[in-house]
């Protein structure tokens, strides 16, 4: 009986590890667009035009 219980635990751990590792989830994107940003410092000029 104890041997059977061990088998169950072993398979459970193995199956959980396998499935969790293979689960990609379903949240987030994660694309690198790699496009350079401009100089944000220029935004401080003309602030009265932020309607």
């Amino acid at each position: 009986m104890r041997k059977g219980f061990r088998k169950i635990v072993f398979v459970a751990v193995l199956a959980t590890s396998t499935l969790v590792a293979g689960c990609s989830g379903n949240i987030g994107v994660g694309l690198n667009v790699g496009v350079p940003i401009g100089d944000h410092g220029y935004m401080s000029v003309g602030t009265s035009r932020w309607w």
Partner: protein
Amino acid sequence: MRLFLALTLLFAVITTTSCSTGGGPNLDGMSFSERPLAGKVIWNDLITEDLDAARRFYAGMFGWTFEEARGATDGEYLAARLGDVYVAGLLAVDPREDGRRISRWLPYVSVGDVDEALRRGLGAGASVAASARDVAIGRVAAIIDPQGAVIGLAASRIGDPDDATTRAAAGRVIWHEMLARDTIDAAAFYRLIGGYEVETVNRRGGEYTLLLQDGVRRAGIMERPNDDVQPLWLTHFGVADPAEAAARAESLGGSIVVAPSPALRDGTIAVVTDPDGAVLVLSRLST
């Protein structure tokens, strides 16, 4: 035989529950629309060259917690949570060889069909920033619009987070706004991509263009404050006090680009960068 049945049953239970509980994100605090909310920004990614610094900064700014997420194709990726809602993603990227900085916030607009929206965008003068592909959330792409602003397109496979889930609150993304070279051209382009209704309002002595979806304000377009500003999409985060939040950003390694002042939208916003140079707007929540 009994042992075999027990093992089979156990395996079946684990198979059906692992991705929705321990292995996948916990979406219990979020609700999703049954149909795509075309034109709504449904996700925001920070692209950063310094993930550790970003993690510390946004945890300190907004109280976000982070989970490692699988499914991102372009590097190490953290999903940020505020309470029981996923609010953004943080993607680690390598620096460009030419040394030009690429850290930025990138909003993803819901479109019914990413490939079709991409085709329309390219036909109207946009170029590809990231080609269409399938990732964790669904199908996505990113474009550089005809004026040079970068924006993402997404078709979620689990539905779009509804307006109750994304309601304005401190520490959440609350608005998106383009600083455009030509507001009329920009509105026409985004109408083509997102199917928006376009409305121009006069406020504080100037014209502000609203992009709406079924009467709901989804984003804004404003003429850039001067000709040296590269057209871009700004991501606004809700705060109680922009001045206090800007000071906090500075203390956490960021920098203040535009300090709050009466001349800047009546003191309701501050423009800052995080430690790696990604720009964000700290926007006072309406009371």
